[in-house]
């Protein structure tokens, strides 16, 4: 009924312009400028052909700008976007606020149960799915097989931090601009803190104890930070305090890193001969551990969510369904090859024998399965999230702490001072926000 009404309305409006009379809904999709999303924009012909009545407008932004824009818009109910690309951090917080339309009524053919459990759990609040994962990732070690061999070492499938240090030392040759290890150093809760928080988990550290008391004054964090600084200062590239994911990717692709511990999605970029000088010399291993039962890997997914207020829910859902469906994966595979399929979302993808041939497929799945957002640390914590703490204050906190650690990496302050500052500012903010009474 509604559709007919809308069609009529549209027809009236359009016939006045004497053009074809079918109702066209335009939806605006906000997305991050990552490779998989850019690829999707190139494959829109398929969507347009299947759904000629829906027109999609893209707003592509760099991650930090995107996050600020969509959060601001959804919190003020600005209504500028019909579909938003959001991370696993936002989904539970937003869902609790009632800001997202739930996706429980997607058709059976969509097969929501096919979504990897680790990922799906993070997107489900009170039994309802609030966003559909476009791609999922964990982190792992990517290394240069040729340099490893030259160093006379053999990378185990599940290395320890001690081995990483040893290998980094052997692989470093600064005169040839060859750095043993590249890690994130750029300040930001989603940049250096994603890595460092995940690393600290494996060192037995945690952000807060069960009473929300910050833990940066503990021995575990001190150990984490000193080891990280030691690795980077001795074997890392210059300018590391400004390096995020993209900068490190560029370094690795141009052959300047021996090892790089970062997002599993990077695997398809570093093994792509079109962009990477080292495409055929890359090996993969699980993120390192310290023998305490937790690995230093994270869990993340970029998801498509629909703001609760939008008037175009149906069209938006149609789009989300298409972009995160099994068919979309097959479409990418047919156009660009299996290695370029958005990874880490569906069980069926990893059961596909074709996909199993992709060199990093198994390691990605193992890494994702090795992360447990509900029990991220060695000691118990009051929060959910591996490399983040799923509370609204975390973005600000994580970035402020990240700045301190970044300053320590740049050599402006000592590790002790950075931890002291981090502890002080976290206590302050948590007191302000009312967690610490």
């Amino acid at each position, binding site marked *: 009924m509604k559709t007919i009404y809308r069609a009529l309305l549209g027809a009236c409006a359009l016939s006045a312009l004497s053009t074809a009379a079918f109702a066209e809904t335009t939806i*605006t999709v*906000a997305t991050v*400028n*990552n*490779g998989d999303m*850019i690829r999707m*924009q*190139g494959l829109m012909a398929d969507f347009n052909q299947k759904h000629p009545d829906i027109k999609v*407008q*893209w*707003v*592509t*932004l*760099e*991650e930090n*700008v995107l996050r600020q*824009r969509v959060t*601001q*818009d959804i919190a*003020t*109910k*600005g*209504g*500028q*976007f019909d579909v938003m690309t959001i991370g696993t951090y936002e989904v539970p917080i937003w869902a609790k606020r009632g800001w997202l339309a739930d996706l429980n009524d997607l058709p059976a053919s969509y097969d929501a149960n096919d979504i990897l459990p680790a990922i799906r759990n993070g997107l489900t609040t009170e039994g309802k799915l609030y966003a559909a994962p476009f791609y999922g990732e964990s982190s792992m070690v990517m290394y240069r097989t040729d340099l490893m061999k030259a160093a006379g070492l053999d990378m185990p499938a599940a290395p320890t931090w001690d081995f990483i240090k040893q290998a980094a030392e052997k692989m470093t040759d600064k005169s040839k601009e060859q750095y043993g290890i590249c890690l994130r150093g750029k300040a930001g809760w989603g940049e250096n803190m994603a890595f460092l928080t995940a690393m600290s988990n494996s060192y037995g550290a945690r952000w807060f104890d069960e009473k929300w008391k910050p833990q940066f004054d503990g021995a575990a964090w001190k150990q984490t930070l000193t080891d990280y600084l030691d690795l980077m200062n001795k074997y890392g590239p210059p300018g590391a305090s400004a390096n*995020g*994911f*993209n*900068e490190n*990717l*560029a370094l690795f*692709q*141009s052959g300047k890193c021996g090892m790089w511990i970062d997002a599993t999605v990077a695997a398809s*970029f570093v093994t792509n001969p079109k*962009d*990477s*000088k080292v495409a055929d010399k890359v090996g993969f291993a699980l993120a390192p551990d310290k023998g305490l039962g937790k690995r230093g890997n994270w869990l993340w997914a970029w998801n498509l969510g629909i703001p609760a207020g939008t008037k175009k829910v149906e069209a938006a859902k149609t789009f989300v369904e298409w972009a995160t469906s099994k068919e979309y994966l097959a479409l990418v595979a047919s156009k660009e090859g299996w290695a370029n399929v958005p990874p880490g979302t569906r069980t069926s993808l990893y059961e596909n024998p074709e996909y199993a041939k992709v060199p990093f497929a198994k390691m990605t799945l193992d890494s994702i399965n090795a992360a447990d957002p509900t029990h991220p640390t060695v000691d118990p914590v009051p929060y959910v999230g591996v490399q983040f703490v799923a509370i609204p204050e975390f973005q600000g906190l994580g970035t402020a702490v990240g700045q301190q650690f970044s300053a320590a990496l740049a050599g402006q302050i000592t590790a002790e001072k950075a931890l002291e500052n981090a502890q002080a500012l976290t206590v302050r903010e948590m007191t302000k926000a009312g967690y610490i009474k």
Partner: protein
Amino acid sequence: MARQVKTRNKVIVTIAAWAVGIAIFFPILWTVITSFKSEADAIADPPVFLFFNWTLENYVTVQERSDYFNHFMNSVVISVGSTLIGLLIAVPAAWAMAFVPGKRTKDLLMWMLSTKMLPPVGVLVPLYLIFRDIGLLDTRIGLVIVLTLINLPIIIWMLYTYFREIPGEILEAARMDGATLKAEILYVLTPMAVPGIASTLLLNIILAWNEAFWTLNLTAANAAPLTAFIASYSSPEGLFYAKLSAASTMAIAPILIMGWFSQKQLVRGLTFGAVK
């Protein structure tokens, strides 16, 4: 002899001036050159200057990814629109301040300028809420309004200083001859004011074109200008110097070319009363 010294001086000055000019311009030149390289050539060490395989590939990639023309048109409409409306409001105000100055004119002018010192981030959320309520989010008209207001003080100041240099005696002479206010404005003032207005117009188009805070935060898809276009390239994945250069070139080329063609007009009135 004297002549020889002069020529020698001229040669030295020529070399120095060109060296400085090229040094200042070099980052732009390098960006343009890099935009025609392959990604591998873009980071080659030692760098390649002219002898590489020139390619248009980056421009094709950028155009495939984003609708450049749409962003470009938004930039044009927003910067020209806000400047024209700004002039419409500012010319009478500046004229009155310059020719009928009161005791408080200076204070008024300073107050206007001080409104430009407010940090925009501080008022973004309030303004976003207002724009949402009156439906101006992501509209060209909304951006035209904001940019008109933020640049208005500069426009008024620039016109005021220019108008003030128009000698008052001319006006008095015209009035003696019995010219009406209308005739005074139309036949005496306008011809003298045109260069100042022209350079104000140009300066403000440049300022509006390059404004990157409001234009990014108040738009989504429909009204997003080139500042938003460049925001999607600010940290792409992998090797991106060549693509970044292509996008940068596309974002700055229109205003750069306009600026060059009109630099005489721009410079003529760009004194802010600095010349007495």
